[in-house]
């Protein structure tokens, strides 16, 4: 029996089911084919444009189609990196369809009609697309091609509200590019380039893939996942110009916090049910993730016991805490990777105090002991660890900084706002390419080599050929003591990063990190994980503060 209500959801296995009659849909056909279907479904929704504009317009396409192309390519890249094909074929696909439906761009009975825009274009049938009389566009001179600045787009919002008598038209390759940028109504969620990553990550999270958000963003930064010039994947006929640039052109790298926040907005917008549970055996569980980071940071395996203990104490290992549940708005937005890193830092603080004194005293003690007993298992020597890590970190950081500086942002497919500009943009591109070739031949033999295959681990310590020493097997002696049948630290002190947390609503963050307020050892450890995760140190610091506040909750309350 089929009911006629369209109210579907996703089962645990990722299949569709109707929420009203609870029928699980067995047969599903793949609508998205490998080549973009030229608007068979969508064309019926809006009126087509009657006149072909002067720029070779190619197909009529909507912004969401562009994002669809990009998402597909991103998913394929992830698949190439080892993610299960289920992510692309089922999860991401369904999320995307859900998004289209929720944002009323497709799969719905009452699609959005850009009446204001269409009527404008309708009256502009005879107008030249080049004669764009927007204020920002008027300062065009062939000589130096005053290309559009971002400020001109402040005026875009006035376009949609323009009366039909105004002869302004927004130039864009896509049909709805102009209206896409209009100030959004409440409850609306516009797809953007960073948000594509949020969507990808939601899909990865649904499948509980062993990829953290910081890993994902690192792959993006290293160019393994299309992002920077993702629009290159559009087919030839999908012309991109004008206002489309504002949507698809990327001028900055995605920021962790931004993508993370958008993830939750998206999950709520899509009305997703509770995600699959993050259990003890899941990669994203702090206990497991801590192992990974301990290995990368070249810290003793024994520290893992301690991270587990802290996890248990502050209840961050609970399934309810870790699992993403868009329905329950009060759950904290968990950053799995940052949480794991912060846990390790807290444990280091517990054991070594990290006040620029205690850890060094212990280190000299451990060193003496290690020198005397060379056969036994070495004690963990903080100073030795620091020296080795710092050396590697400096080298890697320098490499990373230079890589970033050498990054090429522009691609072969040049972007321009209008036909008038096209010539100048192409000419400049040609000049730049020629000069790049010239200087490239003058560069050393260290050319841009093929991108190394990305790996989950950035620093590898256990290999034989590295001259770094592996601390994984070192033991935590000298800082532990037996007490009442359990191990506890000899260090009885602890310093809190902050006594009082800020109000998130006022300044956006719970804590503010000022380096000079903290000991050097703490800064070092923070910077180490900041490098590994590619996030600002302040983010990890915030997480550390939160953990501490949970850990010492009772003591703090007594004050």
């Amino acid at each position: 029996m089929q009911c006629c209500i369209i109210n579907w959801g996703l089962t645990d296995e990722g299949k569709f089911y109707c929420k009203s009659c609870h029928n699980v849909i067995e047969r599903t056909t793949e609508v998205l084919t490998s080549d973009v279907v030229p608007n068979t479904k969508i064309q019926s929704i809006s009126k087509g444009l009657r006149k072909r504009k002067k720029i070779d317009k190619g197909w009529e396409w909507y912004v969401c189609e562009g994002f669809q192309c990009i998402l597909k390519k991103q998913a394929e890249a992830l698949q190439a990196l080892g993610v299960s094909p289920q992510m692309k074929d089922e999860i991401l696909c369904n999320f995307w369809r859900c998004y289209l439906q929720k944002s009323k761009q497709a799969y719905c009975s009452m699609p959005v009609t850009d009446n204001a825009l269409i009527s404008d274009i309708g009256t502009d049938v005879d107008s030249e697309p080049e004669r764009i009389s927007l204020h920002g566009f008027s300062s065009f001179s062939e000589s130096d091609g005053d290309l559009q600045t971002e400020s001109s787009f402040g005026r875009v919002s006035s376009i949609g509200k323009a009366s039909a008598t105004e002869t302004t038209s927004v130039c864009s390759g896509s049909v709805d590019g102009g209206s896409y940028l209009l100030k959004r109504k409440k409850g609306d969620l516009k797809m953007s380039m960073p948000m594509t990553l949020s969507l990808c990550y939601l899909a990865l999270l649904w499948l509980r893939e062993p990829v953290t958000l910081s890993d994902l963003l690192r792959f993006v930064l290293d160019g393994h996942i299309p992002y920077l010039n993702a629009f290159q994947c559009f087919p030839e006929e999908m012309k991109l110009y004008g206002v489309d640039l504002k949507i698809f052109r990327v001028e900055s790298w995605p920021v962790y916090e931004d993508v993370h926040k958008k993830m939750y907005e998206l999950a709520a917008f899509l009305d997703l049910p509770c995600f699959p549970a993050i259990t003890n055996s899941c990669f994203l569980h702090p206990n497991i993730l801590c192992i990974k980071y301990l290995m990368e940071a070249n810290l003793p395996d024994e520290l893992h016991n301690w991270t587990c203990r802290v996890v248990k104490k502050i209840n961050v290992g609970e399934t309810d805490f870790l699992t993403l549940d868009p329905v329950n708005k009060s759950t904290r937005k968990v950053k799995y990777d940052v949480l794991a890193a912060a846990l390790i830092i807290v444990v280091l603080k517990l054991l070594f105090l990290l006040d620029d004194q205690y850890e060094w005293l212990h280190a000299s003690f451990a060193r003496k002991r290690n020198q005397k007993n060379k056969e036994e298992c070495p004690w963990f020597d903080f100073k030795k660890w620091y020296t080795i890590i710092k050396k590697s970190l400096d080298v890697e950081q320098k490499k990373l900084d230079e890589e970033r500086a050498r990054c090429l942002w522009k691609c072969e497919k040049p972007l321009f706002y209008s036909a008038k500009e096209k010539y100048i943009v192409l000419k400049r591109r040609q000049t730049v390419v020629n000069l790049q070739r010239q200087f490239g031949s003058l560069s050393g033999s260290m050319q841009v080599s093929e991108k190394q295959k990305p790996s989950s681990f950035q620093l590898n310590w256990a290999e034989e050929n590295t001259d770094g020493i592996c601390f994984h097997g070192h033991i935590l002696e000298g800082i532990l003591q037996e007490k009442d049948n359990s191990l506890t630290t000899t260090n009885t002190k602890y310093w809190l990063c902050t006594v009082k947390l800020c109000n998130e609503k006022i300044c956006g963050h719970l804590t503010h990190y000022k380096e000079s307020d903290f000991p050097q050892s703490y800064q070092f450890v923070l910077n180490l994980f900041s490098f590994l995760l590619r996030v600002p140190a302040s983010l990890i610091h915030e997480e550390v503060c939160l953990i501490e506040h949970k850990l010492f909750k009772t003591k703090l309350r007594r004050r």
Partner: protein
Amino acid sequence: MDSFVEQLTRGAEEEFTEESAWDGSAVRIESSSLPAIHLPVLPRYLQHTTTGGRKATGFQETKTACFNYIHEALLENQWQRAAEFMTAYLETLESTSAEHRMAAPEVVWRIGAEILCHHSKSSIEEFNYFAERIKNVGVKNYLKVCLEHVFHLLCNGLIDDAYRNLSLAEGWRYGEQTAAHDKEMKLIQAYKGLLDYYNWSEKRKAMLELDDDDLAQFVEQEMHSFFRQAAVNFKEIIKIPGVWDPFVKCYVELLEFYEDYDEVRQVLSEYAYNSKFPSNPNAHVYLYQFLKRQGESKKTRIAVLKILHELVPSHELMLEYNAMLQKSKKRKKHRLGLQVIFTVLDFAGWKEHVKAWSCLAKQIKQILENSSKHLYWIMEEWNSRKDWWPAFHFSHHLAKINWQENESLACEKAFVAGILLGKDCKYFRYVSHQGHKAKKGRFQTMKKFVKKHSSSHNPSVSI
């Protein structure tokens, strides 16, 4: 005043009630006897600082970082490394921000020129290729890059290429932009004039060596055409206030060859005396040299050198000036001459100039011999110098050195020292002693003269 304070307190109270979480730092001191002091409370929006202005995009940040790396590499002469980063930096030419895009060509040009100048694998062809590409990026940079490109070519001895480039640049027109780049155009024309002058002088040399009359005449015609072109351009540039020494010199040479002396006179006078032009000692030198060549009267020449003396008292022409002043009949000029020679010897570059010292010695001798009524001239000049000249010129150490290196210098200086400082001064004593040992005859006469005159006018001599 009161109402203002009242307003503030009211505002403060309102704020306190709204937000209890904030630990306000405003202090309220109230006591019955004293009036209440209400310190102002920060308005709400000042409590939390935020960064203002537009945030730089990731693109701009990476390009700034790239630029810093290039800068470092250039300073450390790591040309290869600079070239590597340059590949990425070139993208600033395509920046989306209009202001960055406008500024980019010049920066890229400077960096690129620097790298290509010094890189071992680079050649002038590479440089030419680069210059051609950058010239045509945008329009505002065309002339500037052209000119600098020409300089590079000239430095590499490629005069013909430079000439060709200048001719091309001269013909550049671009609507409204042409007027905006007037100054650069004038410079280009001036340098073209300079190269025309060079060609002219080449033709002149060639013509003198040729035997064949017909060919010589042909070459002469070419020479004249170069002259005309050069003259036009020089005339234009010299009109603009500025320092145009090389152009002026060449122009003067051309005009003198064609015997247009009036024009020369006018040009040089303008160059030297027009107050709009920056003060330039060379202008006066050129004028003087021209007048000398023309055989002008001493009076006019002295007038020119007077100004030069004010500008550059240590100029090498000062000796000539002094000579001319001495030859004149007027007493004032003699006195001025004395001033001139004293001033010249104030400068370290003249310390060991024999002629200068001998001039001074001669003049002093003349004054002393002629009834000493102009003695006060010497006294006045010496007054301002007596504190430091002894150490500067007449130390014992210098006496030894001077005697070793140049006996005539020592002799002249000793004379002056003897007169000005008295016969007991170190310098005089040492040199005359040495002279006596070497049995040089003239020292006897000098000693006598000094002895005769030094006691009379140096009662308060200090060594």
